């Protein structure tokens, strides 16, 4: 009786023998190993091979397939890359028209290491962009330095005049030469005050007010004429 005949028999007819039980267990271990990725035994009976293939198909259809971790990572990278390229303005594929994009052939059958390939594609673009920036950076810095030198030369800050004392410096506003009127000069206050009567001898406070007001008027006139070009002395 062949093995096929054994399986074709009604199950409830006879009890399972220990030999059949041991054979079924060995067969189960073989199928589990194949599903886990073990290679097929090099030599196998054609009936057993047919049974293993049938069992593999049944097991694969009855539970979810979990791809290998590296394959999962590669698929995620490919999806991210496609999304980045689409955002960067790459030619749109049929996926944008609402249809699902079929995976490229390279995704199904990678020519090289899938991890290397998927990650390298993204980093290569980044590296290319950083290389462009690195190439342009010296030129940008040189141009900025030249522009800054020109701007500093044109718009120079006010000169600092070194005082005769030595170390201290003070910012001094430029002063124009203007013709001086008598009222703009330091001079005796006699003509302004006139003769001081005996009764006014102690009224120095009023006289200093008069002198200060007169000199302040002349000083303001001088200051304004220095600031405003073309002004004539009063």
């Amino acid at each position, binding site marked *: 009786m062949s093995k096929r005949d054994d399986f074709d028999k009604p199950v409830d007819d006879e009890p399972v023998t220990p030999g059949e039980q041991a054979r079924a267990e060995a067969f189960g271990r073989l199928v589990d190993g194949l599903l886990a990725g073990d290679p097929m035994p090099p030599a196998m009976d054609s009936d057993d091979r047919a049974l293993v293939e049938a069992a593999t198909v049944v097991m694969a259809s009855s539970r979810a397939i979990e791809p290998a971790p590296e394959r999962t990572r590669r698929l995620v990278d490919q999806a991210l890359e496609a999304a980045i390229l689409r955002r960067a303005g790459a030619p749109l594929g049929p996926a944008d028209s609402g249809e699902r994009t079929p995976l490229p052939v390279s995704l199904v059958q990678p020519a090289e290491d899938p991890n290397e390939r998927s990650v390298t594609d993204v980093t290569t673009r980044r590296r290319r962009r950083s290389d462009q920036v690195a190439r342009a950076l010296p030129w940008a810095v040189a141009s900025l330095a030249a522009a800054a030198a020109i701007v500093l030369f044109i718009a120079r800050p006010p000169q600092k005049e070194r005082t005769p004392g030595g170390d201290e410096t003070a910012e*001094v506003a430029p002063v124009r030469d203007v013709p001086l009127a008598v009222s703009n000069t330091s001079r005796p206050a006699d003509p302004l005050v006139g003769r001081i009567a005996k009764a006014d001898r102690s009224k120095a406070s009023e006289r200093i007010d008069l002198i200060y007001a007169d000199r302040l008027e002349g000083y303001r006139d001088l200051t304004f004429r220095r600031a405003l070009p073309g002004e004539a002395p009063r």
Partner: protein
Amino acid sequence: MTKRLKWLILAVLLGAAGAFASCAQDDRDEGEPKKGRVTEITQPGDALSEELMLALSMAKNLHHKADVYLAEMKSDEAVNALRQILAIQFPEGAPEREDVTLDARARLAKLLASQGKLDEALTTTDEGIKTATRRSFFLANLHAARGDILEGRALQIEDSQPDQAKKLRHDAIQSLDEAIQIEKALLDQRYQERSR
């Protein structure tokens, strides 16, 4: 590559030109007189300066401070305020300095005399007369103040020291004559200026 080389040469030339021009400008500033760009030192008797205005302002405020003290009958504090006017630093050679200090001395001497400090008052006037460099109404006022103080001193000692009192009156007349001569000279000068 040629384009990059052009940019490189342009950037280097621009940068070098800017740095060179900046250095050259600094050298020129150090080598040549900075005419019209920096403050020219005001010469004595020349343009009014900020320093002179500050000195005048201080003198004005100290006189007003003395006014306030005198209104409160605090003559000692008023004397101190007037003494501070004598220590104000005016620009070198400013004619206003002499006028302001002589006027302050005249007021200070009168105030000291009113306190009975006649010797101190005379010292104040004499020091001012010694330092005067020109005839002015302020100097004439100081001579007149001196004459007033001498007259007051003579009145004080008239009964006890009649000879000394007589001498003091003589000195007072001399001081008043000096004041009159100064005023006369200044008035003559004014009339001459007006007649031109």
